[in-house]
């Protein structure tokens, strides 16, 4: 059963509709027992890193998520803000994040139209069971003003260009995260969600 973390500022229902469309067993989870009973976890997200972290702390979900993802090594998928909060710090409000993936989150330069909104190309940089359905390049739907800079190059799974190249998919052990909205990226996004559901990380 896939647990989709449902917090105030998140868009868990959209992810739920996509998983339902794929016929995948899932539940929107709002508390620690829900997180503990899920076999796989999805952290969706829209909005700001600080607000997302506040919501997670208020719902008392940070410890249980850390225990399940870093301790029990359950397969984890972060989406959009659900990717950004995995890093150590975000320039957005200069907030400290979860620190599960080494690196930081930066703002796009103000010379660009920000937020970046729309379909952009995603180029996988290596093979991975979750992203092997993406052609090179695949078009996926982005909405972001900030982007991640993983400290370890091996954690980069795909890149995208918005003036400069940035990391658009992260993979580290049992963690995968997409800066684009997989649940809103048409057939490619649905394919990625289906692959995540079948993924058995080796770590």
């Amino acid at each position, binding site marked *: 059963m896939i647990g989709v973390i449902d917090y105030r500022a998140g868009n868990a229902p*959209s992810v739920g509709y996509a998983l339902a*469309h794929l016929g995948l067993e899932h539940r929107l989870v709002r508390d620690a027992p829900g997180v503990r009973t899920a076999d796989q976890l999805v952290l969706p997200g829209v909005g700001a890193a600080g607000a997302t972290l506040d919501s997670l702390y208020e719902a008392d979900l940070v410890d249980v998520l850390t225990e399940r993802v870093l301790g029990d090594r359950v397969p984890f998928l972060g989406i959009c803000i659900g990717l950004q909060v995995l890093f150590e710090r975000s320039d957005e409000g200069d907030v400290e994040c979860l620190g599960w993936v080494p690196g930081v989150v930066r703002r796009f330069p103000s010379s660009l139209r920000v937020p970046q909104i729309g379909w952009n190309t995603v180029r996988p940089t290596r093979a991975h069971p979750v992203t092997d359905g993406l052609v090179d390049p695949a*078009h996926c739907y982005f*909405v972001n003003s900030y982007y991640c800079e993983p400290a370890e190059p091996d954690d980069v799974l795909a890149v995208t260009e918005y003036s400069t190249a940035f990391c658009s998919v992260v993979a580290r052990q049992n963690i995968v995260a997409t800066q684009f909205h997989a649940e809103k990226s048409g057939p490619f996004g649905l394919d990625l969600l289906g692959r995540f559901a*079948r993924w058995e990380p080796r770590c």
Partner: protein
Amino acid sequence: MLTKRLIACFDVVRGRVTKAQQFQDNIDVAAAEELATRLYDDQIDEIVFYDITASAERRKIDLETVRRVARHVFVPFTVGGGIRSVDDMFDVLKAGAEKISVDSMAVRDPSIIQQGAAAFGRQCIVLSTQVQAVGRRPGLPSGYEVFIDGARKATGLDALDWVRRGEDLGAGEVVVNSIDRDGTASGYDLEITAAVADAVNLPVIASGGAGTVDHVVAGLTAGGAQAAIISSILYSPRFDRNVGVEELKVGLTAAGVAVRPYGAAPSRAGGAASTSERPSD
């Protein structure tokens, strides 16, 4: 690279899509989820729907229709009409929309933009504007005035002043909807669209008047817009021939406009997901 978007727009009344001309003479088209599903299958990039009578009837937006559409549409989905508070926005987002469009309500109470952006992020708040060329005069340096309430009420606001204020307040995108061109199939108002694209550093969406592929090309090139709202051209019964997404994408590509390619689909190698697949556990 970031591509330009085609956004299908529906006006919805009691769960059904209706098509108006210059905000009048509505005719029935189809059930909202039926048309949304058809356009998703035809690879539209994004969908916007407006509950056009919610505001006038002083009722909440039709959340059941939002849910029915969201269940079938796996591209971004924006909803507008009858949004009066952050709680209304929350309800619409929890029903499965990604973005909230604010229009007349934002003119009456601009703080709704700020509150929405603070609660859900800037990217969630689309400022939709109804603009009309009225001639330059003191207080209206652009010559374009903002209207509200289905283009019925003039506000005295200059279109460019208003979109700049919207950006400052926290809007994430701006829709420029030309009242003069709405439903006329005579092309977007390129002058005001380009002026808005220069005035703000946000994605700008051209709206009102697309009748041909060339009109869409013009909106995304000369108009300087990042996205184009299309409706009549896709599904209006008033048109002799409706145009599909493929024809639009082919025309845009031929004109040098980068778009999400039509027909690209995941490789089926390696056991890709299918809609009938069940989890193995």
